[in-house]
C-alpha cells in the first residue's frame, strides 16, 4: 500500500471522531490529530482499534504513542503492514 492509499483510508477511520469534515478532506502528513482535527485524546484509542481492524494489524503501546499526526500514523501502519508481510513469507 502506498502512502496515498493509506492516507485516503485513514480519512475514513478519522471521520467518526472529528466534526471538522472540511479540514479532514485536506489533511496532510503534518496535520495533528488533537490540535488540528480536534479529536478528543480519549478517542485516539478508538482510532487505533479501528485501524487495527481495518488493516488486520496489531499496534502495540510503543507504536501507538507515536501516532500524533497523520504522517506518523501512516508510518506506523506501513511498518506494521510490512512486518505482517514478512511474517507471511
Amino acid at each position, binding site marked *: 500500500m502506498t502512502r496515498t492509499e493509506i492516507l485516503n483510508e485513514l480519512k475514513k477511520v478519522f471521520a*467518526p*471522531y*472529528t*466534526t471538522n469534515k472540511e479540514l479532514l478532506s485536506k489533511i496532510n502528513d503534518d496535520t495533528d490529530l488533537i490540535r488540528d482535527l480536534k479529536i*478528543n485524546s*480519549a*478517542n485516539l*484509542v*478508538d482510532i487505533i*482499534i479501528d485501524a*487495527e481492524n481495518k488493516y488486520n494489524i496489531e499496534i502495540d503501546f510503543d507504536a501507538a504513542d507515536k501516532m500524533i499526526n497523520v504522517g506518523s500514523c501512516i508510518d506506523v501502519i506501513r511498518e506494521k503492514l510490512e512486518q505482517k508481510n514478512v511474517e507471511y513469507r
Partner: protein
Amino acid sequence: MTKRVVVTGLGVVSPNGIGIPSFLHAIKNGISGIKFMPRYEELNFSCRLAGMPDFEWEKLINYISEVTFHGLKGTNIAYGLTAALDAWADSGMDYETDEPRWETGCVFGNSIADTEAMKNVIIRVDNKEAKKLGSRVVEQAMNSGVTSYISGRLGLGNKVITNSAACATGSQAILMGYEYIKHGYAKRMLTGSTEHVDTYVYGAFDSMRVLSRKFNEHPEQASRPMSLTAGGFVPGSGAGALVLEELDFALARNAKIYAEVLGGSSNSGGQRQGGTMTAANSTGVIRCIREALASSGVNAGQIDLISGHLTATNADSKEIQNWSDALKRSGNDFPLINSLKSMIGHCLSAAGSIESVAAVLQIAQQFVHPNINLEDPDPEITNRISVNCLPVDMIKKEINIVAKANFGFGDVNSCLILSKYN
C-alpha cells in the same frame, strides 16, 4: 430566606408518547403504550409485554455531535438525554454555551447501565480482547453516565448528581433539585430520571412473579392498577425531565411557568414494622406524605389530586389505605387519584419523573387523566374510598394541588407537593 421554585420546562420519552405534545394527547385520551414483545416469548418469560417508547435512535443526531453519537450504545442514556434536552429547549434556552453555566446543576436518576449493551463488553473481556473495548465503555457503564452526557452537552456547572432509589428515583431527583434551589445553592436545576428495562433486568423481575402474565394476548389491558383483576405490573422504559428554577430567576427571563413545587419529603421505612426489601413500611409511607405536606404548608384537605405509585400489584390497596390514613380522608372526601401506570406500565427509575411530568401537565392544563383498565375496581379499595375518586375518563376540573408519590425497593419513599402557580 428560602426561595420559591417553579417548573419552566418539560421533556418526556414515554411508552405512549415522545415529546410533550404527543404525551399530552396520549394521557388526555387514555392511550396505552403497552406492547407485545415477541422476543420475550422466545425467552420463555411469563410476562411478554412492555411499555416501550417508539424511540428513533437516529434522531439523537439532532441532540448531540456526530462524534458523541458514534459509539453511544446505552439506551438509558439516550432516553435521559432526549428528555433532558427537550425540557431545556422547552424552557426557552439554547443548548450552546462557551462558559459553564455555574448557576445551573443537574440531579438525574438512573438504575443500572444498559446490560444488553454491556453484554458485548463481557463477551470481549471473556475472550481476552479487553484491548478492543475502546474509550466509550466506561462513560456508559458508570451509573453517572446519564448526568455526564446531559451536563456535558449543556455545560452545566453547578452540582451534578446521579441519584438512585429504585422506583422512588424520579420523584427523589426532583425533590433534591427543588431543595438545592430552595436553599439558595443554585438558580436552576435540570431534574428527572431514566430507565431502560433490558431483557436481563426484565427477566429478573419476571422470576420474582410480580409481573402481569394473564393479559399477554391483550397488551393494552394488561396494566390494571387498583383493578380486582390486576395481576402484577408491566415493566416500562423511558425518561422524564423537568427544568426547575428559582421564581425570580425565571421571571427575570420571562420564562413560561407550568407549576410550582411547594415541597416534598423522601424517607425510608427502615425495612422495619412490616417494611422489607420489597414491601413498604406503612408508617414510613404515612410519615413521608405528612412531612411533604408540612414542608409545603399545605393541609391534607387542600389536595385535589393524588398521582399514585399504584403499580397494579397487591400493594395497591395498601397504598390507598396509607394515603387515606396519612390525609385522614376517605369515602367521597378522598381526593381524585390516578395512576399513569395504567397506560405506560411501571417505568421503575423513570416512573417518578414521567408521572411528575404528567402531574405538572394536569395542573398547567387543569385536567385529570383517566385510569384505564379500571372497569372492576378492587372492593378492598372502594370500601375505603368512593369509586367517584377513581376517574376512568378525562375530567376537566380546577386542580390546584397535586400530591405525587413513589415507593421503591429498599423501603424508600418520595412524595412531592406540586401546585398551580399563582
